[in-house]
């Protein structure tokens, strides 16, 4: 690996998230490369400068905080939200059901809709007016089996 490849791993090493064998390779590289070691130490120092541990609160402080919280919460059960959330959870089937019903409705409407008609002003298929597309029979040339209807190119 090159120096830049090792530097990509600095954060994971410092975060104790780098596994073997990369960890061993990186540590060996840091032991032998002054530039990389300096960069690694600079990054570690930066983190230490800006992020420091927070002192654990004293037991008395924990007690006082707990009392303050408990004074603000209502006593008794907390069932309202539970009942509501469980009721909502039990209605999980509503949305997919509505979607399915809507899809079925659309299909039913389409099936009942009038068939596609040939427009009255069609110049291409004279005599085919007021017939459905399925009813139109295009005559074929018995000599070569091709359509007798001329189609103008766009």
């Amino acid at each position, binding site marked *: 690996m090159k120096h830049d490849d090792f530097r990509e791993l600095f954060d994971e090493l410092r975060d104790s998230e780098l596994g073997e064998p990369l960890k061993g390779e990186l540590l060996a590289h840091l032991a032998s490369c002054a530039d990389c070691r300096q960069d690694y130490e600079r990054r570690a120092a930066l983190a230490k400068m800006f992020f420091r541990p*927070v002192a654990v609160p004293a037991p008395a402080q924990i007690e006082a905080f707990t009392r303050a919280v408990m004074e603000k919460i209502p006593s008794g059960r907390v069932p309202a939200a539970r009942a509501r*959330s469980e009721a909502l959870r039990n209605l999980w089937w509503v949305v997919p059901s509505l979607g399915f019903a809507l899809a079925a409705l659309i299909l039913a409407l389409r099936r009942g809709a009038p068939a596609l008609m040939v427009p009255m002003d069609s110049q291409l298929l004279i005599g085919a007016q007021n017939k459905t597309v399925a009813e139109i029979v295009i005559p074929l040339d018995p000599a070569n089996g091709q359509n007798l209807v001329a189609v103008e190119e766009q």
Partner: protein
Amino acid sequence: MQTAGLEPQGGCITDSEIVDRVRSGDSQAYAQLVKSHYPRVRGLCLSLLANPSESEDAAQEIFIKAYRFLPQFKNDSSFSTWIYRIASNHCLDVLRKEARHKTESLDALTGASESGDAPPRLTVSEPDSSVAFENKDIVRRVLERLSPEHRMVLVLKETQGLSYVEIARTLECSVDAVKGRLKRARVELDGIARHFMELSDV
């Protein structure tokens, strides 16, 4: 630095059992959950919000909010992770509100543009624990310049000592997303810090 993870602290009764008791009407049992998790929730709030009284208020709001939403807690994750998630979201909301109100530029922070002086130095005498702060207020204000999301992920890692997996659970994202966010956050911190410091000393 705190190194403990998000695992529940030892005791005869598990968090899950206490949650069940609270749900079934024993609201006073909630005090045990508050006592157990207050130190870490407070640590997170203090690291992110800086102002102690604001942090204390935030911690109270977090526990009251958690009590209200306790019925929605599922036992498939630990209570510790769950309340940490509530705390993270609450602090993020506070940070975002604060960020919207900030109009100061980096130059305004140091007064460099007005006076023409060099920015104040935040020197580190040696690259080990002997950190010498020349101006703690500037340290705080450098952190405030970080985007709330970047500040959050850095605090969870550097101050709270969470693993990538624990951060991912807290922020409800993938481990790869955590790695990427941490990387970008560190680049951003480095850039802001360079504005204030002579990094050649660091």
